[in-house]
């Protein structure tokens, strides 16, 4: 018994130590593919890491406004993929995303993007109705409609998988919430159907915001 609990403490300690500190805050990892470039400046060789970022996109939101990646400049955002008629995981995802919404709706530099993967059905008025049913107003949480092919491709950049309708008429998609920083790099992925993971997302947004509040960050 004693040995076991010692082991447990050991692991706990390890976890605590490995969560690296940054001004007393946790620094979130940068996810996704990366590449390096070697540069020679003033005779000195330096190696830079280039992180993959979310590519440009163009969608329409629930108000009928055109939204592109430009509208997100200066914002941290959380993205997910859904469709309004999704019977299985979407209500849970919506319930959990509402916690993110309610926590950060007045933050000013945090947004939520929910891309529909069924644009044929999910027109602007239907998205507006969906937002209304969730009491979502204003411009913090956008429900986005665009070309299906574009959305499937974009899904890949967000590291999630989306597939065509199955015979039961459902789209199979994993319910990840993806946290993107102001440089459009992926900083975290959280299972949107799990309240604990979404609680962690809400916590992590705080750390990510703090990165931009310190003078050291660019």
């Amino acid at each position, binding site marked *: 018994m004693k040995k076991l609990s010692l082991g447990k403490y050991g692991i706990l300690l390890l976890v605590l130590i490995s969560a690296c500190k940054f001004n007393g805050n946790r620094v979130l990892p940068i996810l996704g593919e990366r590449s390096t470039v070697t540069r020679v400046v003033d005779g000195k060789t330096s190696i830079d890491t280039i992180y993959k970022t979310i590519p440009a996109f163009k969608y329409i939101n629930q108000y009928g406004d055109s939204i592109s990646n430009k509208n997100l400049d200066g914002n941290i955002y959380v993205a997910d993929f859904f469709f309004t*008629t999704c*019977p*299985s*995981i979407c*209500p*849970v995802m*919506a*319930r959990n995303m*509402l916690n993110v919404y309610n926590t950060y709706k007045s933050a000013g530099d945090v947004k939520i993007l929910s891309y529909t993967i069924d644009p044929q059905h999910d027109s602007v008025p239907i998205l507006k109705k*969906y937002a*209304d*049913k*969730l*009491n979502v107003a204003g411009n913090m949480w956008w429900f986005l409609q665009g070309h299906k092919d574009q959305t499937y491709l974009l899904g890949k950049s967000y590291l999630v998988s989306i597939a065509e309708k199955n015979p039961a008429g459902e789209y199979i998609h994993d319910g990840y919430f993806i946290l993107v920083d102001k440089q459009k790099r992926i900083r975290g992925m959280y299972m949107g159907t799990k309240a604990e993971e979404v609680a962690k997302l809400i916590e992590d947004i705080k750390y990510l915001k703090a990165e931009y509040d310190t003078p050291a960050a660019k």
Partner: protein
Amino acid sequence: MKFKIILFLGLVMLAIISACQSESQLEFARYYSAGSLVYQTKCQNCHGKNGEGLLSMIPPLTDTAYLKNNRKMLACLVLNGLRGKYVLVGKPFEGNMPPSGLNQVDIANVLTFVGNSFGNKMGTISIEEVGNNLSNCK
């Protein structure tokens, strides 16, 4: 160690108590516990852990009067789903609940669970009752 003894005694007491339960109470407990599992896998995503629903999107299962007054319709509703507009707990809902694909036994289980959770007190909704009501689905 002490904890284990207490746990053991507790279990023994539980066993004694449940042995003293009447047959109908036992039957209720069987329906209810099986129903709670059905609820978790088939309903909870939408209606929520505590039957709270989801804002104006999904109605709560806490409208005791509604459930009581519509007792005869519930089996058909769970089997075939529900689509349309109506007012519940003073709030308008317009949604779409998909057919559940549940069999008669699981419908009885889940209705007994829902009918006796979240403030509802409807007693056992038996397989026979569900069978009767299902034969009257519109």
